């Protein structure tokens, strides 16, 4: 009996190995299955739970009442929440645009200097890129707060009489977000600009284009993939950001991220928080779809 079972097991093993060897798509499936299993358990199922949860309601003691309804979504359509959403979108958009404007000349400069200096400058951009962002935000808190460095200098110089109230305002949040995301824009832009061949610009000059026109008609359009990649890397995380508003925005500034966080941890209204998350997720997917339809999921994202 035992021999029979083990013989069967060996022959199954042999057949499996044979199948793997002969059928390339079986190999592919074997290689991708750890990923699918892991992400299936730890990403797809959790997301599914959130979807389900968003259709439930909060019980009186903060527990979940298992009754399907759309109450949470209807609640979201309230002006209060729509304003939060609108504010998040606006902040993310401003951040993205500002990063493009601030980052483009910098990326352009790095792309044009000789190769030796280039690696040094890239290295200098990478350090803040890899430094924990909470630290970098703290630096700005130090500068912007009422007893902070900025006010200290301005008061000492006599430029102002009373300290400026910058921290814990929407302005501070905006400053923080731009500072945080700038390297994410500069790097893909640089990658894209660096790929532009000198020969094309020379051809433009040869055909009579002055430097300004050449930039506008050739360099700029060719750098669009970098701008798109950078925009994805900035806009999407910026929409879901809650750390910067938390640290620099005070109680007055709430973005979608804060809303969700509060619902889960403070207000304990998990169903409502889930609904808000779904909203954020759908928006994110829409934006990604629009962007990638235009320029693909470029390798500019990888350095």
């Amino acid at each position, binding site marked *: 009996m035992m021999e029979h079972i083990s013989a069967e097991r060996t022959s199954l093993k042999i057949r499996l190995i044979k199948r793997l060897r002969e059928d390339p798509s079986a190999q592919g499936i074997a*290689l991708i299955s750890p990923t699918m299993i892991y992400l299936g358990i730890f990403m797809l199922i959790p997301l599914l739970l959130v979807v389900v949860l968003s259709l439930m309601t909060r019980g009186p003691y903060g527990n979940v009442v298992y009754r399907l309804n759309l109450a949470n979504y209807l609640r979201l359509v309230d002006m209060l929440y729509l304003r939060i959403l609108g504010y998040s979108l606006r902040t993310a958009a401003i951040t993205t645009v500002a990063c493009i404007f601030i980052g483009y000349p910098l990326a352009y400069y790095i792309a044009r200097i000789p190769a030796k200096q280039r690696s040094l400058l890239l290295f200098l951009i990478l350090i803040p890129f890899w430094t924990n962002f909470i630290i970098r935000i703290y630096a700005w808190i130090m500068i912007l707060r009422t007893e902070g460095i900025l006010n200290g200098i301005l008061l000492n110089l006599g430029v102002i009489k009373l300290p400026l109230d910058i921290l814990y305002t929407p302005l501070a949040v905006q400053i923080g977000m731009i500072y945080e995301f700038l390297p994410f824009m500069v790097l893909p832009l640089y990658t894209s600009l660096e790929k532009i061949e000198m020969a094309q610009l020379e051809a433009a000059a040869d055909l009579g284009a002055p430097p300004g026109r050449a930039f506008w008609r050739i360099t700029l359009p060719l750098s669009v993939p970098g701008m798109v990649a950078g925009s994805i890397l900035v806009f999407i995380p910026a929409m879901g950001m809650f750390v910067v508003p938390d640290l620099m925005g005070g109680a007055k500034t709430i973005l979608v991220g804060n809303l969700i966080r509060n619902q889960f941890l403070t207000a304990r209204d998990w169903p409502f928080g889930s609904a808000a998350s779904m909203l954020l997720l759908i928006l994110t997917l829409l934006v990604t779809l629009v962007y990638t339809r235009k320029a693909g999921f470029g390798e500019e994202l990888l350095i």
Partner: protein
Amino acid sequence: MSEKKPALWLRMYAILAYAYIYLPILLLIIFSFNSQKINVRWEGFTFYWYGELLHDQEVLLATRNTLIIAFISTIVSTVIGTFAALALQRYRFPGYTLAESTLYIPVIIPEVVMGISLLVFFAQIGMRLGLATITLAHIAFNIPFVALVVRARLHGFDKAIEEASMDLGANEVQTFIRVTLPTIMPGVLAGAMLAFTLSLDDYVITYFTAGPGSTTLPLRVFSMVRFAVTPEVNALSALWILTVFIVLGMSQMIQQRQK
């Protein structure tokens, strides 16, 4: 892009831009030596806060946790992610599109959403939040990044060397270990480095999957910034920046030498 020197205004702009990027960081470092506790005005130079840091049990514990999580999640996600990259780049199989989309969801999903979904999940299966849940979460978001990096490096891969290896007598496993793996190793290492850094730096997802006893360095820094603002935070930040500087510097030098 070109060998011509760029315009003067561009250079000035670049200098200003770098100043803008580094000034806050430099101020941060400078004020880590401030002897005034509330760190509002410069009082005097001292190493006191660095000493405090090295005795701060919470910080040390957080550092230990962060490193453990980073190592484990890097190793696991690199293995799984590399296999995924090989699968997607070299094979066609039923369910390919589904697999590819699933793989890239963690990249585009907002961290908040991923964080709360894992919180809900662990609550549902009754698993207590702690180091284990953080690690599981980190592996989940690291796998796609590793896969992306390795996939990009797989582009120029010449399958003929694998055929040559089998032609010379090596079976599929031997070929993978002795030929394929060494050839893709730079890409795999790059992916691993990315995974390690992402894990080290992560705040949001860790925030939702951490339990009471299991704090990590980013979480600790956050609460120090929020609640106990002494120059000790500056000292911690300065050390962190220094570490990044050293590690990046080393990897740059290694890359240069390879060329």
